[in-house]
């Protein structure tokens, strides 16, 4: 333990604690800008400087471990003047059109300017270069004029996700965080995961919005607008209305969407149960044939593009089952339209997702199994939060309501899709029953839960041992798959039979479409909340879902039937590691 004083308050902290965290313990918040609790400190911005008695100059609190006997001052006039000067310099080179910025009221630079007491900017930069906004991606917009070069986006892109779509290019006053050849995110290896978006402190990165298009559809009397909501949305949306992190608002969410004017409020969770039927059946057939093992899950579109770009040899291992969003889309304009007697051409299919990559997924050319665009518009959780506020809806005041039939019922197995390990757990619950004809007594498969990067478990299906692994964030997925590649090279097979991958840290609860200022602590709380909903539901196994059973009976025949294959399964492409485009052949 190290003893030191911060502003005359004595503290005792473990060795290696940074001054920033030690100060927090002593009750002082040192302002920061580039620092993020989940990322290694970079020391770019210099806002967190402090004085240490006897040492020359100012030290960056985020990077300086506290030393024995340090006497630290965090808010002297010299420090305050330095901080103000730094913020003024950043502001002199920043597009300060705050009122029209997507980050207005959620911007860390705005808050910092208020915290350090900026009331004038003495530096004028008349020659500030106006950069073009990068609109090349269908999922993410990048505005370099708002960028403060803190580097959080590229740290998460390179170190956490190992995608390396972003880097610091050019130099001096020309420095720009951009893609290779400045070709734009849409012409790069970017997987659209949106982790850069949720880590950006300012408004330099945000989703390509579809709110205008959805408003238009809602106000068009000729359109029948259906909406589906992903599992992870229901444990985040409350935050948009000031509720504690992780508050479960399934019922209130359905009520709010109904009041916004959606013609049918359905639920992606229905399609998650359906996914389990398809993927579980696929797992059993692969286990039986022994071909293309391990089977790898395919629900996360960021992960899909990552695999298509960096792991061409894993394509045969991917589950061909579409993601729940796309299964839902394919059924909405076929089965649902037929049962409800609605012309599918009039259906506008909207999905609410914790994800930016879903915007890319819905536009993939092959996602038109219904004969129409299966999903027309994807809104992130943030966008629907904005739209609800625009519509004057307060989530806090909503009653609890159910989703509409016949694509609205769901089990606990579906709702845990939103947390890392959830798809695996749901699949095992049903695969066990499909193989043995008996039900798992204890449906909770705890080894695959939690935020450890790579989790493993061995499942005993009446004597057949199935080794499974779960990875979340693409960096962990890369490590796991390299291990699988190694094993296959050496032994011709992998120790694993089934692998779940989610592109984002924590799974969908930590997706790139979730609220600003996401961090691991929040992701954990949202995940716990999903497991709590699972425990509270009367049905916890996907194959028990009566609406899923009805869909097979009336329309799809049986899992992996020809019809199911046409509507609910897909294929993948090899992509270039230079620009992410589909390779010929």
């Amino acid at each position: 333990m190290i003893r030191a004083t911060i502003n005359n308050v004595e503290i005792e902290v473990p060795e290696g604690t940074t001054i920033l965290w030690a100060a927090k313990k002593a009750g002082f918040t040192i302002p920061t800008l580039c620092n993020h609790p989940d990322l290694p400190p970079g020391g770019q911005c210099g806002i967190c400087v402090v004085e240490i008695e006897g040492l020359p100059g100012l030290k960056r609190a985020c990077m300086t471990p506290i030393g024995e006997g340090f006497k630290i001052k965090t808010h002297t006039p010299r420090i305050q003047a330095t901080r103000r000067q730094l913020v003024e310099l950043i502001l002199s080179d920043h597009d300060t059109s705050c009122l029209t910025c997507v980050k207005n009221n959620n911007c860390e630079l705005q808050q910092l300017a208020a915290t350090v007491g900026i009331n004038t900017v003495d530096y004028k930069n008349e020659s500030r270069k106006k950069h073009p906004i990068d609109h090349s991606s269908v999922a993410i917009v990048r505005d370099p004029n708002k960028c403060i070069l803190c580097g959080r986006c590229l740290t998460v892109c390179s170190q956490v996700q190992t995608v390396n779509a972003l880097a610091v290019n050019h130099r001096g006053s020309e420095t720009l965080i951009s893609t290779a050849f400045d070709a734009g995110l849409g012409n790069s290896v970017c997987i659209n995961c949106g982790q850069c978006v949720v880590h950006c402190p300012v408004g330099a990165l945000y989703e390509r919005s579809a709110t205008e298009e959805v408003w238009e559809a809602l106000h068009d009397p000729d359109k029948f607008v259906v909406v589906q909501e992903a599992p992870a949305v229901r444990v985040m949306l409350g935050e948009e209305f000031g509720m504690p992190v992780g508050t479960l608002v399934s019922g209130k969410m359905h009520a709010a969407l109904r009041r916004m004017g959606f013609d049918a409020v359905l639920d992606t969770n229905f399609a998650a149960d359906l996914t389990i039927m398809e993927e579980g059946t696929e797992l059993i057939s692969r286990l039986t044939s022994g071909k293309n093992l391990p089977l790898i899950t395919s629900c996360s579109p960021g992960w899909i593009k990552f695999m298509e770009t960096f792991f061409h040899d894993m394509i045969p291992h991917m589950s061909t089952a579409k993601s729940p969003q796309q299964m839902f889309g394919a059924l909405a304009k076929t089965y649902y339209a037929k049962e409800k007697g609605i012309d599918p051409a009039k259906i506008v299919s909207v999905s609410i997702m914790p994800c930016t990559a879903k915007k890319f997924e819905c536009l993939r050319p092959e996602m038109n199994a219904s004969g129409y665009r299966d999903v027309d518009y994807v809104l992130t959780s943030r966008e629907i939060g904005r739209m609800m506020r625009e519509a004057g809806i307060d989530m806090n005041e909503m009653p609890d309501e159910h989703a509409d039939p016949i694509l609205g019922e769901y089990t606990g197995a579906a709702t845990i899709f939103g947390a890392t390990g959830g798809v695996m757990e749901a699949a095992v619950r049903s695969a066990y029953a499909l193989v043995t004809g008996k039900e798992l007594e204890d449906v909770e498969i705890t080894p695959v839960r939690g935020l450890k990067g790579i989790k493993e478990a061995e499942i005993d299906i009446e004597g057949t041992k199935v080794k499974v692994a779960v990875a979340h964030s693409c960096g962990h997925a890369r490590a796991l798959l390299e291990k699988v590649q190694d094993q296959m090279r050496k032994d011709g097979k992998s120790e694993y039979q089934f692998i779940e991958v989610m592109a984002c840290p924590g799974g969908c609860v930590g997706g790139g479409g979730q609220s600003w200022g996401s961090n691991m602590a929040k992701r954990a709380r949202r995940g716990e909340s999903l497991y709590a909903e699972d425990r509270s539901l009367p049905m916890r196994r996907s194959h028990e879902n009566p609406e899923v059973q009805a869909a097979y009976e009336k329309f799809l025949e049986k899992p992996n039937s020809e019809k199911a294959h046409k509507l609910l399964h897909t294929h993948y492409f090899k992509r270039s590691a230079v620009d992410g485009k589909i390779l010929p052949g």
Partner: protein
Amino acid sequence: MSEEKQCQCAEIQEEELYPRLEEVINQHRGKGEDLIMVLHKAQNLFGYLPRRAQEMVAEGLNVSLNEVYGVITFYNFFSTVPQGRNSVKICLGTACYVRGSQEVLDKAQKELGIKVGGTTEDRRYSLDVVRCIGACGLAPAMLVNEDVYGRVKSPHLVDILKKYE
């Protein structure tokens, strides 16, 4: 770009250089820490760093393409455009600047139809600025290849450039 394509001889020559780049990369395969050295050698080979060479270096050294691009765009030494046969460098050091070298530069950009860092389509000239060439007594000064010109006034510029084919 289409202009460049017309010059068949240059295309073919560049094509022939890629196997040699491959040899260079082979000596550093998988060693990301050798990036700058390899880029240096690649630039000596091609005279600049064509996009395909950048892609080969990234793949060969197992670094991301973006890291390669970041390094290239950081260091002035590296160029992503082909260099002209004649290198025109205008001094913007303090002495030259106060004696009007900005005017000379403006004129050069206008005459050649290119910006600083660019190369004319016929690859006759490349234009760059330098900060002091030690000829302050002759300000404003400029360099064409190894030749130093002093007390350059913009009207002289055309005559100077004409000498170089």
